[in-house]
């Protein structure tokens, strides 16, 4: 268009900054759009009536917020550690949260684990799968002596498993410029029998972190109210 084509510099930069962006994004490896974001987008589009006072809330999650972001996991698989076969899966989950702006307040954090098979289950029936999530140092190791942020047992894991991290991420404070977690999945024993290896880690597909934040504009509006 004549306007931006002629002066892509200052004018476009001002426009992008008003949209909360430091520069024009040029997605190199754009991931799929999570269905929940499409649902929220379409619902807002159909409900939006002219002049309707849009609140700063994300009704789907029942939390305040005007910005929903989904961060892809940039971590790697970790060696299972000793004794071998104790763990089905051990992975560093690493999220680059530098896109969060000054003044944004975190109101919800949800980790989503996705598995290839429709269900990821221990090798022998009757056993449980134990899932633990630790905060890690960026080097990818659980901080010694720290209790897990999340500890859950499952008879089997479905294709998609959401884990609420809101409380664990100190609700109200947007995390720093990145977030490192260690995910461990093991086949729970019944105490007597040793843990046996469970489904191989190739059942694991991907992880993403969904954050809802309240931007400065909404925070100011709520403050006034």
């Amino acid at each position, binding site marked *: 268009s004549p306007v931006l084509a002629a002066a892509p510099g200052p004018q476009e930069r001002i426009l992008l900054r008003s949209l909360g962006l430091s520069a024009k*994004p040029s*997605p190199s490896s754009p991931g799929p759009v999570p269905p929940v974001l499409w649902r929220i987008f379409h619902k807002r589009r159909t409900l939006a009536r002219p002049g309707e006072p849009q609140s700063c809330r994300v009704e789907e999650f029942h939390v305040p917020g005007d910005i929903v972001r*989904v*961060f892809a996991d940039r971590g790697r698989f970790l060696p299972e550690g000793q004794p071998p076969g104790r763990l089905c899966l051990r992975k560093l989950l690493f999220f680059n949260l*530098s896109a969060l702006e000054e003044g944004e307040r975190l109101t919800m954090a949800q980790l989503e684990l996705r598995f290839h098979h429709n269900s990821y289950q221990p090798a022998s029936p009757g056993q449980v799968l134990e899932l633990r999530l630790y905060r890690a140092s960026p080097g990818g190791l659980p901080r010694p002596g720290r209790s897990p942020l999340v500890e859950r047992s499952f008879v089997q894991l479905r294709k998609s498993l959401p884990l609420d991290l809101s409380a664990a991420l100190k609700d109200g404070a947007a995390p720093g410029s990145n977030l490192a977690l260690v995910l461990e999945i093991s086949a729970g024993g019944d105490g007597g029998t040793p843990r046996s290896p469970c489904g191989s880690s190739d059942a694991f597909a991907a992880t993403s972190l969904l954050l809802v934040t309240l931007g400065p*504009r909404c925070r100011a509006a709520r403050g006034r109210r």
Partner: protein
Amino acid sequence: SPPSPPLTPSPLCKPRRLYISFSDVGWENWIIAPQGYLANYCGGDCPFPLAAELNSTNHAVLQTMVHSLDPQGTPQPCCVPVRLSPISILYYDNSDNVVLRHYEDMVVDECGCR
């Protein structure tokens, strides 16, 4: 944007059709949805005597009166947005994250003389 129907445009202040297509401004590779939206703009005159439907302030009424007496010295009031509504945009940010963000004041719903 598609040509608006050939109506005789009213000279008075009111919302006018403006469709913004993100591909026209070269943003289509990072904005996922919408592809564009009806933003509209305000255009038209605020003549003396200001009619009631022009949604004007007392000050604007007085200004039009002074303008009619002294057109060179005092301009007409301006036709500006008085009610706007938000839209949500789904896009990839600078780190390839998927973002759904709510932006206020993106669509002109009503204009007025100010």
